[in-house]
């Protein structure tokens, strides 16, 4: 099967020119000035047209992607007249919303510290971006590495905008997180003497990523999900939160859920709420394809903002440079950064290198957009999408036969199903929306500015500044999952409040009406709508961007 005839000549050019790129050839790295210019001219974060200022609410004036503004500035999905807060369905010490790595870690930790915990989650336990994380978890574990170097790399990668105290907690607790996961039985790739296989993700200065083949997140999620079941922590599946409930002083006292099977709303009262709802990928910011899970619709941002939580850096979106551009069935899904770390070059339609394979995600994405746009050196597919080549056959040529399959069993298997053999042929890639760098501002315990409301993982902002480094998100969710879980278990509200209300939601709806803001949506969105012709439009998103680049 292989690639269609129209794309074959370009594949052949890559093959012909591959030998020039062996023998340790590397494209020169960008200088600090060159990188700044590349980002300014070609990274979507720097294009003003894709962003707007919020017109209402606690974050009025904040720059956000247009698609996020559209859901934030929609009336609530919740029919306020149909909810009776006097009839509580459930009371708990700690309510965790979301069950990816951050949510389950917070739940396990709060439980371990003696709190009664309930998890409410939109889909199944574990359905999240965590499960899709291929690359690994960043931990300064090698003797020559240190949390100090990890700190420097994270700050530089984040364009110096990270919150220093939060980064300190991240890098200091990373090693104990690796130990914790290992003790729970996660089978990290190990050597015979018990030491870990490490590899170097882009933007890091040492081999710092620890993986389980290319299925790291899957393995961690399986283990943690199993532990949640062993501890018999209550999990309400297919019951996403739709609004938070507040007390008289604006403190968070619970949430209203929507049972997706029955349509019934559930009122949960809680002494503390930990939100671990993930990012906004499925809103398709700037029209990009996304590597995100089906449920990544920014629900947490929408609900928290209505409850007066302050956002930080929410306009900064990470595009992963190596999203799959062909076959169409896999469009937008991710190819691990580790493929580049293992030696695969990034080359254009003529098989020529145009960027160093180890540039940070933002710079590499910008370089690919420039190659496909302005320089017209992209590869055009049958469906009109564009891409450049990730030269995967180099990995076995350089590292020895069997290297690719050993490291990337999952990727190999998925491409073979569509007739493409990454051992023999390069893979077509194009940037894909990958991560929401900002979110609700947090402190070192994961606390937001709203009392008793915590944020963990992608929904939180400040850990990664303007740009997250590869392998830093897995460590983020576990470090701050542990921190928020512990702090919430020790500090949740024990006293009853005089009145619990959804007045802030009513006020939000009224403010929109007063400002004359009209929307054909209600939010949080919960799930994207891909029905009918929208099932196919994912290819058009790319076209629009290529046009805009010209």
């Amino acid at each position: 099967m292989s690639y269609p005839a129209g794309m074959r000549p370009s594949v052949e050019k890559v093959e012909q020119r591959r030998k020039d790129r062996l023998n340790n050839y590397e494209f020169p790295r960008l200088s600090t000035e060159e990188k700044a210019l590349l980002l300014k001219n070609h990274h979507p974060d720097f294009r003003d047209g894709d962003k707007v200022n919020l017109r209402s609410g606690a974050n009025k004036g904040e720059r956000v992607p247009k698609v996020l503004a559209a859901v934030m500035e929609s009336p609530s999905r919740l029919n306020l007249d149909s909810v009776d807060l006097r009839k509580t369905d459930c009371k708990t010490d700690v309510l965790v919303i979301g069950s990816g790595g951050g949510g389950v870690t917070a739940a396990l930790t709060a439980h371990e510290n003696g709190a009664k915990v309930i998890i409410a989650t939109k889909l199944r336990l574990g359905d999240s971006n965590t499960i899709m994380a291929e690359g690994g978890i960043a931990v300064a574990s090698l003797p020559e590495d240190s949390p100090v170097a990890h700190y420097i790399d994270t700050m530089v990668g984040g364009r110096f905008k990270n919150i220093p105290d939060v980064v300190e907690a991240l890098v200091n607790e990373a090693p104990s997180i690796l130990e914790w996961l290992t003790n729970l039985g996660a089978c990290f790739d190990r050597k015979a003497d018990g030491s870990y296989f490490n590899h170097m993700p882009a933007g890091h200065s040492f081999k710092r990523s620890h993986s389980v083949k290319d299925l790291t997140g899957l393995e961690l999620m399986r283990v943690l999900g199993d532990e949640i079941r062993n501890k018999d922590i209550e999990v309400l599946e297919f019951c996403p939160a739709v609004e938070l409930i507040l007390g008289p002083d604006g403190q968070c006292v619970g949430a209203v859920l929507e049972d997706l099977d029955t349509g019934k709303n559930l009122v949960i009262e809680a002494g503390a709420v930990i939100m671990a709802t993930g990012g906004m990928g499925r809103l398709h910011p700037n029209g990009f394809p996304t590597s995100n899970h089906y449920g990544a619709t920014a629900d947490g941002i929408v609900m928290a903002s209505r409850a007066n939580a302050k956002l930080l850096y929410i306009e900064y979106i990470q595009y992963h440079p190596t999203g799959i551009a062909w076959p169409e069935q896999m469009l937008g899904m991710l190819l691990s950064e580790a493929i580049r770390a293992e030696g695969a070059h990034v080359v254009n339609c003529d098989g020529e290198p145009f960027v160093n394979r180890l540039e940070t995600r933002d710079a590499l994405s910008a370089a690919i957009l420039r190659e496909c746009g302005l320089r017209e050196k992209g590869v055009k597919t049958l469906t009109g999408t564009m891409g450049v080549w990730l030269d995967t056959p180099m990995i076995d040529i350089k590292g020895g036969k069997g290297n690719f399959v050993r490291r990337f069993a999952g990727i190999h298997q998925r491409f073979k199903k569509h007739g493409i053999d990454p051992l023999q042929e390069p893979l077509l890639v194009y940037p894909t929306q990958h991560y929401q760098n900002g979110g609700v501002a947090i402190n070192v315990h994961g606390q937001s500015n709203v009392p008793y409301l915590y944020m963990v993982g992608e929904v939180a902002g400040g850990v990664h500044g303007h740009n997250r480094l590869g392998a830093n998100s897995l460590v983020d969710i576990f470090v701050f999952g542990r921190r928020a879980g512990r702090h919430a278990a020790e500090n949740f509200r024990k006293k009853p409040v005089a009145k619990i209300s959804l007045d802030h939601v009513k006020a939000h709806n009224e403010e929109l009406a007063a400002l004359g803001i009209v929307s054909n949506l209600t939010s949080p969105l919960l799930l994207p709508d891909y029905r009918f012709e929208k099932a196919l439009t994912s290819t058009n998103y790319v076209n629009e961007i290529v046009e805009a680049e010209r």
Partner: protein
Amino acid sequence: MNEKTLKMISIYVMGKRFTVPEDLTILKALEFSGFKITRGCGCRGGVCGACATVYRNKGDYHIITGLACQTVIEPEINLVQLPYISSNKPFYAIREINPDSLDIVKIYPELMRCMGCNACTKSCPVNIPVMNYISAAIRGDLKQVVELSIECVMCGLCAARCPAELSPYNIALFIRRLYGTHKLLKSPQLEKRVKDIKQGVFRAEISMLKKTDNKKLQEMFNELQAKKGASV
């Protein structure tokens, strides 16, 4: 992609006919047909196991299983997605189990009911030799269970098809955790790093960095990068 230029084919969803473009995955074909999926869609990339689907192709008596997001439709395919698969999952404390004892069989006694029919392997959408790892589990070869089952996406199709009523994917997870907890050696290097951090070995240096200006941080980063060279 323009709908007019697409070649359209018929598929059957729970027996009802829909006309969709060829070459779509089952998931996209369902969406093109107008289904908004709640149960039966997850990562859309073949790793989460949410979209287990059972189907028959026209004129073929075989029952075929697959993941909707990874399987391309055939003309006249007749399919249904499985919203949920119940499974057996006992409680256990992983650290307290002796991996070299009969505890494995005590926790999952149904292991011994395996009759070697291989229906599990045939049903696996990620081509795991399920029956082989069940055999390895019965033999007590934990390492082989880990190696054979590490790519499991927990879709539950093996449990749905097993005539001996095993939940193979839960058994594999249990054994992988047992192996990881008890059989993999500790890393002294990691233990030392954790201890050093607890004792505050890096505290002063990081405190200083928190007050260091961006230009200096950038220089320090450049130095680190220069030292690492091209090898990764």
